[in-house]
């Protein structure tokens, strides 16, 4: 009887562990702290939801410039602070001056592999001159 209880308890604990790890894929995101900041290295506002990704990755800095005369181009420098490879998915959402998300082809999750200690450049170009701010979302990829 004791054995059955032990097995059942262990199964429950295991099920909980598997369940929580499968459902817990938090997103870390970052954007400009001041949407009107037009400097080449704008200040960052980070929103981190915890989880191991926040410990493994660091959004070191962001650069921005204008291309095609009036379209904002940004580059987020993401560093893998751990020794092993890190596979992530990222998405960039562009927003207008009122903070409304612009519906364009940027709204797609893109895969990226960052080797241990490496800094990867995530780039995106706004598709409209109305885009003044952005939000980068990063989450762990499903497969290692």
């Amino acid at each position, binding site marked *: 009887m004791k054995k059955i209880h032990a097995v059942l308890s262990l199964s429950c604990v295991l*099920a909980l562990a598997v*369940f929580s790890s499968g459902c817990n894929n938090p997103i870390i995101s970052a954007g400009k702290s001041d949407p009107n900041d037009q400097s080449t290295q704008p200040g960052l506002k980070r929103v981190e939801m915890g989880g191991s990704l926040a410990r493994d990755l660091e959004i070191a800095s962001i650069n921005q410039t204008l291309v*095609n005369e009036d*379209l904002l181009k940004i580059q987020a420098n993401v560093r893998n602070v751990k020794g092993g490879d890190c596979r992530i998915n990222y998405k960039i959402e562009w927003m207008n001056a009122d903070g409304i998300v612009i519906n364009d*082809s*940027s709204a*797609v999750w893109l895969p990226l592999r960052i080797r241990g200690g490496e800094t990867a450049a995530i780039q995106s170009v706004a*598709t409209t001159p109305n885009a003044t701010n952005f939000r980068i979302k990063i989450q762990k990829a499903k497969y290692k």
Partner: protein
Amino acid sequence: MKATAITTLLALFTAISVTSCGPRSPVGRNADTRYIDDGSEKGLVNLGKINAQDFTRAANKLLQDLFTSGALAKAPVQPAVLHMGKVRNDTQTYFDTDLLLQSMKRDLLASNRVKISTTEGPGGIGADEYAQDVRKKLELTGDPKVNRPRPYYSLSGKIIEETSRVEKVTQKDFYFLLTLTELDTGTGVWFGRELITKQGRRDAIGF
């Protein structure tokens, strides 16, 4: 007795946790269909075909490259008229190339650098045949509002598929190749290339 109570409590807690946050229990035995977002990372990933998220990714990357090149900003009159030419599907699966082009057209228009004709096309056939007919009739009546702005750019290209195999691992390379031609000079002013590579043994749900 105590052990039974603990086990029961644990089992109850597990059941509540799983049912409260996990996927809802299907009504039928295998009913698990759900909606996923456009461009979601939960979409199917097929080794042998271009999936929805691949089209969006290719369109986005090609446009970013085009905008970064500054080619569209060089037209003397802006917004310049862009003719959307043919994009040939040279892959093994059939799909409508508008899956790639429609979102590109939307984003190109949003850039305010180009206008896209829907009433001009190869062999005199435009995308909107009704509008084309109406314009033709108005032209015959001499309506001064009907004008035919000459395209300044033309966008064309092809999509190529390459397959490689090592043991049981397959790699599919999908090349999206687009060219922007300036009609006045007849020369290419931008050559875009986006490669989407998939590698694996079998298809997957999500990535």
